């Protein structure tokens, strides 16, 4: 019925406007209301799938429930069971002293560092190559760079399992011929992190190269010309002209990398250690740990507490990011 009421206004806005000058302000207000309707889908979506789950999850973190209790509550509205499940801050106390949570945090940052920093350097190199005007078929190479990004993660996982297999993997078989190894790509901590980081690098290198490339191409020619007039060498031009001009882009990439890094899930899950992230939890990441508590151990409340923990980590990192970005911005304005 509401649709019927507003509909004439949509059909004849000009007529409504010309009909009477006095009624104009309220016509604008009505149009504003229509405007709200246009943006409503986003807000409805955000409230339903963004805000409410956050509130729900935070609330859940104060309970100790498994799936059966949860279903029982949904089915029979068994409020007593819910009351019994209230544990207050106990989940957070446990989280604070939970070695697996801190281990997962360490693993997550380790994999993040191994994947982000080399990736940035390689992406920069690739972007410089692609930015070279002498390069032939540049659009072909640019398209090629995006291919890893659109490949199914599961397919990638299967291929990488074969590359990093301990006994018959491509790398270890190769190393065998030069009498090195076998490297424990799955069983040991650092090698497994390197292997997972490689999967991530492979996937995101091209994407980041293209972002850097577009930023490089947007640098004004005059800067290079004046550097050339000043007699700057090629290396110095890159160091003093190109890189400073890419600051904002690099910050953007770091932020995106951090978001992706903290949500690291599919790669470690499909790497062959199941939900445990390996027998010694050597590549258990934060989200994988959350998923394990939720699905395997059926501790819904504790999983929610881990979720809150991850949020706090994200807030801390965002604050750091903000500080760094502000510093860069102020350097620019100097």
């Amino acid at each position, binding site marked *: 019925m509401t*649709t*019927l009421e507003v*509909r004439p206004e949509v059909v004849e806005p000009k007529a409504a406007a010309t009909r009477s000058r006095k009624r104009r302000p309220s016509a604008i207000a009505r149009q504003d209301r229509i405007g709200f309707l246009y943006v409503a889908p986003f807000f409805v979506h955000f409230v339903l799938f963004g805000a409410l789950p956050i509130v729900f999850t935070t609330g859940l973190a104060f309970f100790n429930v498994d*799936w*059966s209790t949860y*279903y*029982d509550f*949904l*089915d029979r509205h068994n409020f007593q069971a819910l009351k019994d499940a209230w544990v207050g801050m106990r989940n957070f106390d446990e989280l604070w002293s939970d070695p697996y949570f801190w281990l997962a945090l360490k693993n997550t940052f380790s994999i993040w560092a191994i994947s982000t920093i080399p990736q940035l350097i390689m992406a920069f190199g690739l972007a410089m190559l692609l930015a070279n005007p002498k390069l032939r078929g540049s659009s072909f190479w640019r398209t090629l760079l995006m291919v890893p990004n659109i490949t199914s993660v599961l397919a990638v996982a*299967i291929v990488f*399992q*074969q590359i990093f*297999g*301990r*006994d*018959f*993997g491509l790398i270890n078989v190769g190393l065998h011929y030069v009498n090195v190894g076998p490297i*424990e790509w*799955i*069983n*040991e901590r650092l090698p497994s992190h390197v292997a997972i980081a490689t999967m991530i690098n492979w996937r995101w290198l091209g994407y980041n190269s293209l972002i850097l490339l577009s930023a490089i191409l947007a640098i004004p020619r005059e800067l290079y010309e004046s550097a050339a007039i000043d007699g700057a060498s090629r290396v110095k031009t890159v160091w003093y002209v190109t890189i400073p001009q890419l600051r904002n882009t690099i910050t953007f990439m770091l932020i995106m990398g951090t978001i992706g890094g903290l949500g690291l899930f599919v790669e470690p899950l499909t790497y*062959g250690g*199941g*939900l*445990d992230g390996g*027998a*010694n939890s*050597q590549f258990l990441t934060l989200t994988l740990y959350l998923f394990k508590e939720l*699905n*395997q*151990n059926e501790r819904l409340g504790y999983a929610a507490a881990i979720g809150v923990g991850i949020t706090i980590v994200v807030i801390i990192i965002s604050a750091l990011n903000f500080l760094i970005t502000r510093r860069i911005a102020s350097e620019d304005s100097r």
Partner: protein
Amino acid sequence: MFRRSTLKVVAASAPLLFTLLVAPVHGATQVTLKVSSFGNVFEPKIVDAYRKLHPNIKIVINKMDLDGEHQQLLRSLNSNAVPDIAAVELSYMGQFRQPMIASRFTDLNTLGARAISKDYLPFRYTQGTALNGSQIGIPTDVGGLAVAYRVDLFKQAGLPTDRTKVAKLWRTWADFIKVGKSYNSKMPRSKFIDSTGTLFAAVLNQGTSKYYDPRSHQLIYSNNTHVHQAFNVAAQAGCVTKAAGKCNSSIGTKINQFTADWGAGMQHGAFATILAPAWMLDYIKQQAPSTKGKWDVAAVPGGGGNMGGSMLTIPKNSGNQAASWAFIKWYLAPAQQLTTFKQYGLFPTTYNLYSNPAIKNYKDPFFSNAPLGKIYSSSALALKPIYSGAKDRIIDSTFGQALSRVTQGTQTQSCGGHPSQTVDAAWCQALNDIRRNVG
């Protein structure tokens, strides 16, 4: 205005809607059965045969990994997005038999399960009976347990190759480990067994109780000496010699089962034995077709044993109860189980077949014509079921993790006064982890 235009659209598309909704009814009603599965529970050729018999039934099988399938199933039971038929593995059956979860499955007795109940091995059939008395599953196959071994590699290692002599080599698990050591000392490029962790389940299932007290259903994993013994057998096999505190030699490889390396290792003779329930033979054939004729099958140490097997269930929220039941009844009837066995080696649960010559005299050239029918039917008939409780799967995999740490030499934590890299530290950490995960 709005309404009128809607009406117009409806009126204009009415003939189309009519065709869409009514046309199929002219033939038999088209039914799509969504089946949720893992591993090799549904064999494609048998399913195809059903499709041919019933062209109006469409069967869509969604195959996932074992844990993923069960966890997704558990989450979906409360919704309408349930599969019509779901395969449940025995390691999860203890959980699914709990009244709260079992009540989300159709009691198959209401569809006529009682009439066919006599066809199945009694202990296997009752594994599908929930604690609230309803029959939630019909058994697909029975594991049984034997050892598949590579005749050619045994010969190279100077071990006997005849299956009865081989079985005599390893009457006990201690003998099995001893044979493993001597094999490894003679074969530098190959290991005795694919995964020493599998010994744990094998030894455990030879006992009378596991993690739960069969009567009180209370958790007893930490003080059931049989569990600790099984753990130690597997740990000893995984850590036969030590150097610098690290296990530097195991009778098994460091390969995890069901990974890419496992298949490759099978093909290249990286290991000489696999603990093989009947369903494992199909995996061996699929993963290493080039090793045809190089395998044989002998009895397992400790006499008999059991590993795995599945049940087919119908979630209560499925909209296709009758069609699902018709399919299950057909798929697990003796005739189809016989075909499944012949084509894929899954061992039937309809035990009247065991005296059928097709099974009694069954031999497979892939496994050097070992009398597979006889080996697995005697193993299946000798089985004593063990009570399995709600959290068996989690406890299984936590102990498995600890044993992997022993074999890999990655028990980096000390625990309960036991220094790192020791079997006792792995056991202690496993108990702590289970206490956390299960309670």
